């Protein structure tokens, strides 16, 4: 594909190669619509493997890297935006970046099969003084002649170089164009400095908004073409100006040749089946079940069980045997029970995380992820969540950690935080173990276990509603979903993203899990005077006894074993199964005596309260400390309120 250059640019520049101009260090920014292929282009230019996806909202922050063919050039990938208006966080971020640290050139990434959509942003970029080159993506899915015609028409109409991206050669051409426009528009640094000083002085009226700054701190004047001349000023953020801009863009788009993607027709046909009124739900449920079983059951579960039940005890035994000659039980226990169990619990999650990440990457690449949002949106919006949350909630039935790991697919920030906060209420497989153990000992009817499960789901709905009611309203972005084309997932992309997700899990959640495991090991084995004691007398035990009056209204103490059940609640933070193990130790081999109602209340409280440490770490990594803390406080409150309600209802039932 040839590069079409504007007639106004010097011919000499057209033949410039990266090596010829590589003396000056350059910063080039990629700016374009969501799901326009910026990150894919960024990965091609830099040789990096950043997360990409066939949906909007994959990039949320700037990411910079050196170009692989030109170490003097830094390429910055910006979040996808539809406009440069200061409303959504991504738009603010990109606008501020262009205003405060203007790059030497901008590559405007434009999907050639959806040119009209992207030209709105292009029109705003052309009104800034940052030199731009248009990169036409998706060129490989359209007719080559159509793309060439569009390329020429765009370059002529907008007076900017335009490159169709369809291979390594086109990337080199794109780079040469960027260097050319950056060199031709070389900044007068002195002028820029003076302008910045002027703008900073209090006595001089400074540009009041971003768009004025965009054009004032550069010596280069914005390009003037017939198209740009018709546009409203960039600092006019009124709806009338936006409509006027849209109409100007529509006029231009009407004159441009159309590039039909060969994926459009295929997408229409596939949607006819996948979104069919009769087939949509069965296909959706099948995909959800497939994800659930592949990531939480089958070979993956077997591998996790082997790690947890065979490999971990073997390593712990090995460490104990190795350190036996030292005669230092505390150090041996620290390494064998604290550090090893922490590290191995992280390792135990890796098969699940890897399989899940691969499945999620494949789903995103295929374009079905956006359709999942479409199918599940209405029922989930009733509890304050959005369609994309459905994947996380389904996975939550297997493991909360993997479910929270999948929350990255939820586009809207607020919805993502809500989803991460709601997921721990869904009973995971570890919680089912607690239900099974308590049911076997204390409850006669299977309906009791079913009711526990139902109450958990009710609590999840309540949590979603509360977060929706009292949180900032951001349904707008969740209510509009762009439907990408269906594509076959590329194994290389799926592989790279799986590695990236596993690495992120190890870095963010893994370290926290190991640290907290060691801390809990210490709290369960030592008292406040740092003497090695039993669990009942340990720091954890003391805190449990201290807290037991708080749990008395919940019925934990109705047979005099309140302290044991309070301690087990605390140790349950390590892992929910650990609560049962603690109770067995404290009850000398069996669960301590408690009434069936007390057992029901204890089980319910443990199902609803703060989840295991791995889930906590994953939650903090996904939504930040502040939001995670709020969510856990809400969780404790809901757990207490529900359990208290269950106890009062139980007592009243017994009375009547």
């Amino acid at each position, binding site marked *: 594909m040839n590069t079409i250059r504007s007639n106004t640019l010097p011919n000499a520049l057209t033949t410039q190669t990266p090596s010829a101009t590589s003396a000056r260090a350059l910063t080039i920014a990629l700016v374009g619509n969501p799901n326009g292929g910026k990150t894919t282009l960024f990965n091609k230019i830099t040789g990096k493997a950043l997360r990409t996806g066939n949906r909007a909202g994959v990039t949320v922050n700037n990411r910079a890297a050196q170009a692989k063919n030109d170490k003097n050039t830094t390429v910055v990938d910006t979040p996808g935006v*539809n406009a440069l*208006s200061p409303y959504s966080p991504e738009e603010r971020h990109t606008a501020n970046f262009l205003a405060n640290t203007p790059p030497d050139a901008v590559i405007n990434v434009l999907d050639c099969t*959806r040119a009209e959509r992207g030209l709105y942003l292009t029109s705003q970029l052309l009104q800034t003084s940052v030199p731009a080159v248009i990169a036409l993506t998706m060129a490989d899915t359209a007719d080559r002649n159509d793309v060439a015609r569009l390329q020429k028409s765009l370059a002529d109409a907008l007076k900017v170089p335009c490159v169709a991206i369809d291979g390594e050669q086109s990337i080199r051409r794109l780079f040469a164009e960027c260097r050319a426009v950056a060199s031709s528009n070389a900044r007068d640094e002195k002028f820029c400095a003076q302008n910045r000083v002027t703008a900073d002085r209090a006595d001089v009226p400074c540009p009041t908004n971003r768009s004025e700054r965009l054009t004032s701190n550069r010596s280069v004047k914005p390009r003037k073409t017939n198209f740009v001349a018709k546009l409203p000023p960039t600092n006019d*953020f009124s*709806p009338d100006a936006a409509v006027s801009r849209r109409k100007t863009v529509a006029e231009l788009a009407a004159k441009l040749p159309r590039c039909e993607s060969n994926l459009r027709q295929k997408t229409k046909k596939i949607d006819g089946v996948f979104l069919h009124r009769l087939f949509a739900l069965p296909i959706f449920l099948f995909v959800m079940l497939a994800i659930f079983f592949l990531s939480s059951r089958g070979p993956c579960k077997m591998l996790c069980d082997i790690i947890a039940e065979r490999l971990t005890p073997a390593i712990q035994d090995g460490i104990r045997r190795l350190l036996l000659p030292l005669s230092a039980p505390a150090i041996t226990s620290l390494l064998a029970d604290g550090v090893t169990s922490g590290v191995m619990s992280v390792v135990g999650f890796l098969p699940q995380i890897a399989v899940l990440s691969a499945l999620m990457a494949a789903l995103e690449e295929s374009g079905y992820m956006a359709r999942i949002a*479409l199918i599940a949106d209405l029922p989930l919006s009733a509890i304050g969540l959005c369609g994309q949350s459905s994947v996380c909630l389904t996975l939550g039935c297997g493991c909360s950690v993997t479910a929270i790991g999948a929350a990255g697919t939820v586009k809207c920030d607020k919805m993502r935080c809500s989803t991460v906060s709601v997921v721990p209420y869904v009973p995971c497989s570890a919680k089912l173990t607690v239900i099974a153990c308590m049911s076997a000992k204390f409850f006669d009817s299977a309906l009791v276990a079913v009711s526990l499960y139902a109450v958990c789901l009710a609590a999840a709905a309540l949590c979603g509603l509360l977060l929706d009611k009292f949180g900032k309203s951001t349904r707008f972005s969740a209510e*509009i*979903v762009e*439907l990408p084309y269906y594509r076959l997932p590329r194994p290389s992309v799926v592989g790279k993203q799986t590695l990236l997700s596993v690495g992120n899990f190890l870095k963010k959640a893994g370290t926290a899990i190991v640290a907290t495991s060691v801390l809990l090991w210490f709290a369960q084995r030592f008292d406040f005077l740092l003497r090695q004691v039993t669990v009942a007398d340990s720091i954890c035990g003391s805190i449990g006894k201290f807290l037991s009056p708080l749990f008395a209204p919940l019925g934990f103490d109705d047979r005099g074993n309140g302290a044991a059940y309070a301690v087990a609640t605390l140790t349950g933070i390590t892992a929910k199964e650990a609560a049962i193990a603690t109770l067995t130790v404290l009850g000398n081999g069996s669960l301590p005596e408690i009434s069936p109602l007390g057992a029901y209340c204890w089980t319910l409280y443990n199902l609803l309260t703060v989840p295991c440490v791995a889930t906590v770490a994953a939650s903090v990594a996904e939504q930040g400390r502040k939001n995670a803390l709020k969510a856990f406080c809400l969780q404790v409150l809901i757990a207490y309120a529900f359990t208290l309600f269950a106890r009062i209802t139980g007592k009243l039932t017994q009375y009547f």
Partner: protein
Amino acid sequence: MSNVLSKKIELFSTSFSSGAIPLSEGKIGQKYAICEIRADTEELLRFAALGLYVGAVIEPLFAALWGSPVAYKVADVEIALARACARIILVRSVRS
């Protein structure tokens, strides 16, 4: 309170008497022209950036399982709008 209510009724009747219907009631396969968007400035700008503005032509493509959201074709893009979102966009049928 009654003033606000009467104003709302007036707006409602004005829109409907002139043949405008909420986009959420649009028929699949029929083309519509947007004649009003009842949203604040911020939402209007975000709608405009997506190609939804007064005068734009929009076509409902298919509805999701529960009737919401509905996928629409606007210019050269397919987007899905939740029913609540489509309800604030008033449209008029375009005869081709």
